[in-house]
């Protein structure tokens, strides 16, 4: 019921479980701690000026990266809790309610609050530098995207202690996720936080598509563009055409829940299957949204550390674009078992298998990039190499799942779980970690420790096989997903136990990875060359970290692997052309607008979760005012004077 005064449900603060009390206490302690540290060291002004108001893509990349790692931790803890519960049959570690909440938040967080910001971190750090741009096309909008994501993640995580977490699975199918079966506020948290972060993602998609198509350095034709930028272009196209569908699916379910509409209810003519279709029309392209950038990173890493041109560049581009087109024609394979006719199932089955063709081509091209190269087994390269067998197996089980009649036996079983973890971890996570190690010096100016990084790699990679290979077998033994417990007489005990051990090893691997970051902050070797890996693309022509305007002079590009070719020419003794005179650089001004806008979104979202419409309306008003103020602000940019550029360049080059 709509009410004027806020109505606090009895479950407003979640109680009744030591885990949650622990979380509540630690949240309060951490918040107090952060506030104290910021105040004690007088860092508030610094935080606001350098970070909260920044529109610099490099700083936004750093914030995305930190947020992604934090969410990786949260989602990982969820995974550990689930695996602990499944370690043995009939465990009493978690109750059904908690288990259901945990697998829901695990999936949602890993896809939308971990994978998405992780790829956006890579988009932001690499794309403008690779294509020779001073920033993205819309720096202000870029900051809006980040802060919307940030506050959406906050909103989603808040549900753990306030109101209760969503518990209908990350796909949130109605009618289970409808009011009849899920009256609590948890689902509202899910719907609103995804909606808010979805707006941000859509804006990022638009932003990078414009950046890549319109802001490349002179001479950088599309076919001279680094493959990572190509993959970002493909991913952005997917975002632009897929995310609005998610927006609609979530909005309609929200209208069902808040206003009593009947889109997906069982009664009054609602059609729950409509949601399933809408969700997967977004959901399938989404997996390619997060995996194509990983493909791009592998292309960069493999080529760099083999000291060799990427093999079959045109094929790589063609396969990226083919994948992004085909990925729209696959969504029904998520529900072959929902009674579509044999004609429909056959079409989607063959389409799904055919996406394996361009993907397979990419694998062979990476292999032959290494062939006749000189392979340096650095940490980024290790992640890239380890990706290939994992992805080959994951892709193969994908083709097996694509065969509709076979899928009747795999659907929603642990076979499926093993498959998509194999492609999403082996693809996206390995890709992002490779990218993180690869571009870390460019982001921070120092290297991550290789030795600790190797430990993290071997633990995570080894743990991966131990965790997920047994799950294929469990699926073939008939174990379905989302069971909080299982009987002892099915023969599933040993494999579940092994899988849990593997998960712990992966957890240790993640901790070692964090240790590497912490260790390297203090002891990491400084990257004074700007080109620690002997790189090939333009980002390595800049000092690490790059100055805020990126390029003092926009480079002119004459070939693929522009920086590599330039280095070779200079080695041969070709004198570089005399530098053009500097010009003042046009840069956007920092602004608190994006941060404030996202805070308002957060407040409105929180209000709607509890059906406090007044708060929602106030937030809407606040959003409009915020947009209006931005529109009226004509003082949004400035020029960096030549003297300042000269000074900065001199300092950076001398260091």
């Amino acid at each position, binding site marked *: 019921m709509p009410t004027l005064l806020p109505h606090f449900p009895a479950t407003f603060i979640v109680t009744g479980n030591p885990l949650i009390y622990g979380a509540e206490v630690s949240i309060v302690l951490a918040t107090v701690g952060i506030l104290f540290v910021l105040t004690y060291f007088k860092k508030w002004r610094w935080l606001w000026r350098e970070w909260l108001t920044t529109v610099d893509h490099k700083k936004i990349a750093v914030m995305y990266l930190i947020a992604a790692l934090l969410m990786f931790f949260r989602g990982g803890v969820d995974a550990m809790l689930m695996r602990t519960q499944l370690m043995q049959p009939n465990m009493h570690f978690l109750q059904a309610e908690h288990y259901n909440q945990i697998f829901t938040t695990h999936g949602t967080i890993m896809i939308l609050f971990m994978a998405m910001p992780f790829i956006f971190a890579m988009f932001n750090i690499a794309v403008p530098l690779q294509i020779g741009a001073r920033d993205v*096309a819309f720096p202000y909008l870029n900051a809006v995207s980040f802060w919307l994501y940030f506050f959406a993640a906050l909103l989603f995580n808040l549900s753990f202690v306030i109101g209760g977490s969503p518990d209908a699975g990350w796909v949130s199918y109605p009618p289970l996720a409808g009011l009849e079966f899920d009256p609590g506020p948890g689902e509202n948290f899910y719907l609103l936080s995804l909606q808010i972060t979805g707006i941000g993602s859509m804006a990022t998609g638009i*932003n990078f598509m*414009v950046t890549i198509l319109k802001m490349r350095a002179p001479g950088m034709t599309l076919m001279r563009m680094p493959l990572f930028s190509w993959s970002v272009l493909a991913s952005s196209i997917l975002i632009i055409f897929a995310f*609005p569908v998610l927006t609609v699916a979530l909005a309609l379910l929200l209208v069902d829940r808040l206003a009593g509409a009947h889109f997906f209810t069982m*009664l009054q003519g609602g059609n729950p299957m409509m949601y399933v279709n809408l969700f997967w029309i977004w959901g399938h392209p989404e997996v390619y949204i997060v995996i194509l950038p990983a493909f791009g990173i592998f292309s960069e890493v493999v080529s760099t550390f083999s000291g060799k041109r990427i093999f079959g560049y045109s094929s790589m581009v063609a396969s990226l674009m083919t994948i992004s087109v085909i990925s729209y024609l696959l969504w029904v394979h998520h529900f072959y078992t929902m009674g579509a006719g044999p004609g429909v199932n056959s079409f989607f089955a063959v389409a799904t298998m055919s996406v394996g063709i361009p993907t397979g081509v990419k694998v062979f091209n990476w292999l032959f990039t290494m062939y006749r190269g000189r392979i340096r087994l650095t940490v980024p390269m290790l992640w890239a190499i380890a990706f290939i067998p994992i992805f080959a197996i994951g892709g193969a089980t994908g083709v097996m799942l694509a065969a509709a009649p076979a899928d009747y036996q795999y659907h929603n079983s642990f076979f499926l779980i093993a498959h998509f973890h194999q492609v999403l971890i082996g693809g996206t996570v390995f890709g992002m970690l490779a990218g993180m190690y690869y571009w870390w010096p460019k982001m921070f100016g120092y290297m991550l420790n290789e030795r600790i990084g190797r430990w993290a790699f071997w633990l995570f990679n080894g743990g991966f096989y131990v965790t997920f290979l047994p799950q294929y077998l469990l699926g073939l033994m008939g174990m379905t997903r989302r069971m909080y417990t299982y009987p002892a007489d099915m023969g599933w005990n040993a494999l579940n136990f092994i899988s849990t051990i593997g998960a712990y090893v992966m957890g240790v691997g993640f901790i070692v990875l964090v240790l590497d970051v912490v260790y390297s902050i203090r002891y990491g070797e400084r990257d004074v060359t700007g080109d620690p890996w002997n790189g090939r693309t333009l980002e390595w022509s800049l000092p690490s970290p790059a100055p805020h305007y990126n390029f003092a002079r926009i480079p002119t590009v004459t070939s693929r692997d522009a920086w590599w070719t330039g280095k070779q020419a200079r080695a041969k003794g070709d004198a570089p052309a005399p530098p053009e005179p500097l010009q003042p650089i*046009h840069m956007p001004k920092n602004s608190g607008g994006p941060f404030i806008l996202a805070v308002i979104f957060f407040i409105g979202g929180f209000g709607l979760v509890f059906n406090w419409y007044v708060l929602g309306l106030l937030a809407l008003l606040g959003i409009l005012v915020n947009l209006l103020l931005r*529109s009226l602000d004509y003082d949004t940019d400035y020029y960096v004077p030549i003297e300042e550029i000269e000074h900065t360049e001199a300092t950076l080059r001398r260091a």
Partner: protein
Amino acid sequence: MTIAHDRLPARETRADRDTPLEYSLEEGALRIFGFWLFLATDLVLFACLFATYVILRDNTAGGPTEMQLFDVPTFTAETLILLTSSFTGGLGTYAMHQGSKRGLIAWMIVTVLLGLSFIGLEVREFAAYATHGAPLQRSAFLSAFFTLVGTHGCHVSLGILWMLSILYQLARRGVTAITARKVFIVGLYWHFLDIVWVFIFSVVYLNGVMG
């Protein structure tokens, strides 16, 4: 021409005689392209709402049907008003390209007024349905109808607020490369909504009353 280019180095402007004012700054060209992409996302959004409507239109759950509900004079008037507003909006852009600030402002005010009357009619239509046994909660068909047409209505309302803000800026700052770009973009938005309405008119209303 009374248009002042902002103080910018040569690289940032692409001004020559044939470039329209709204494209004359690098930044303007980027924003217009970005807005086209935004329209693409909005198009997908409306496509999904249309698909939902088409699938749910017969699920009336014993409640009122399209045939019983839709009133031909009302939706015809709405259509005529909105189409006219798109035309007057276009005249505004034309006036801008002719260098007439007054013409631009006048046509934009006409467009805003037409938009407001469209919204007024739509609100009246919705209120009539809701008070005569056909609220959003009655059936899947009505949920889909209110959401599809209502989303369009929200877009139009936002467009009106947007144009008011731009009118204010035009009055204060005149026609510059920046305000011209804003006028051009809101024009794109307005024409887009017009096209969406043409689909609503034919798919929802015409189809509905013709059975």
